[in-house]
């Protein structure tokens, strides 16, 4: 637990000093939003219907890069090897990395969500508490698998393509759940979003536990 917190503090500290990851992820997210909005080119009254899919597609694609970057940093300076030689349970490393990714992607969501509202004419303020719940559940589930497989992907030969290849099919159920829940919340409030939230919660529980248990097999040498 203590080790996990130290890693979380270390990762956030690195990020805070350079802010490279955050700024990359912000700009990328904004550009993806523009790409989606322009590619769809919907009339203003149909734009709100586009908000949930655009929001989550942007989140998944940006998240892929954000998480991968965290592990590339570890790899560049051989830090991961150092972490692993330290007398620390790999599960704690996983927990720390997962927490750091959740914070990073949460900050990214904090920018993307208002922009989606702005670009696609959705008033998100009334639904905000419920929306935060969906965003958090989606974030945790995505980060759970992304953290696990980023550790794999950065050590393969084709590391740039490996993470999207591994992760995209696995997170499709999360994407479906998140889009359905977001759509329901924006239209009818949180009570209507039960199905989507159930999928998200199940995904989170299963893969946080799986990542926690399996991470040691991924990093062990």
């Amino acid at each position, binding site marked *: 637990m203590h080790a996990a917190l130290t890693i979380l503090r270390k990762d956030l500290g690195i990020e805070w000093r350079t802010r490279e990851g955050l700024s990359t992820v912000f700009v990328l997210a904004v550009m993806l939003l523009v790409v989606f909005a322009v590619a769809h080119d919907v009339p203003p009254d149909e734009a709100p219907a586009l908000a949930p899919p655009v929001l989550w597609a942007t989140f998944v694609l940006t998240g892929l890069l954000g998480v991968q970057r965290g592990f590339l940093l570890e790899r560049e300076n051989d830090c991961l090897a150092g972490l692993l030689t330290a007398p620390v349970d790999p599960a704690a490393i996983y927990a720390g990395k997962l927490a750091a990714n959740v914070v990073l992607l949460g900050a990214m969501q904090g920018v993307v969500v208002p922009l989606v509202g702005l670009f696609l004419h959705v008033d998100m303020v009334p639904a905000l508490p419920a929306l935060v719940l969906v965003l958090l559940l989606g974030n945790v589930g995505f980060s759970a698998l992304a953290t696990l497989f980023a550790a*794999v992907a950065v050590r393969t030969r084709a590391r740039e393509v490996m993470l999207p290849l*591994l992760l995209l*099919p*696995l997170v*499709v159920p999360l994407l479906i759940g998140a889009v359905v829940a977001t759509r329901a919340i924006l239209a009818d409030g949180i009570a209507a979003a039960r199905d989507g939230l*159930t*999928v998200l919660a*199940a*995904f989170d529980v299963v893969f946080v536990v*799986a990542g926690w248990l399996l991470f040691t097999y991924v990093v062990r040498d």
Partner: protein
Amino acid sequence: MLAALWLVFMVVPTEREMGIVQRIFYFHVSSAWAAYLGFFIVAGASARYLWTGSRAADRLAEASAEVGVLFCTLVLITGPLWARPVWGVWFTWDPRLTMTVILWGIYASYILLRSFGGDDEAVRRWAAVLGIVGVLDIPIIMISVRLLRGIHPAVIARNEGGSGLVDPWMRTGLVVSAVAVLLLAGWLIRLRADGARLAEEVALLRRRAPARGEVA
């Protein structure tokens, strides 16, 4: 297999509304079952590999993933052939179709991971982790795709309506082709796992051969 072919094409009556193309159904459904069989074997063998480090379990997982993807591909080829005349489109984002495509993606990336990684103990462990995560994903995919719109016929009817298999010969046809296809899948997996074992032995002998040459 021959008996299945004979049953499907000669004995089973032609479906009233969909006509001859409905006969593809017997192999479509059987292949889907074979693909699932393969994916579940991947998970079981992967867990065993992580637990015991057994090389045989690893080879079984690799072989099952490849055969699973092969049959999954067959499902995705036979499906549209049948869907085009019946539904009017080659593909639709129906729950089951979506699910099949996602599964295909997961296990295709499994094969890619192995081929990019090369023959390394770490790669085998990564693949095993993916094999386990993949199977954990299956039930969640199943729940999530139900949130999409659906038109796929339910073959094994659970509650409402019939299963659509009116003639008893249709049922026999399905069972026989399923058995034939599953046996074929099992045989392919064994063949592939044996091949992998031989390849490993050859690689081992190759490594030893120069050493022996120096001695002589």
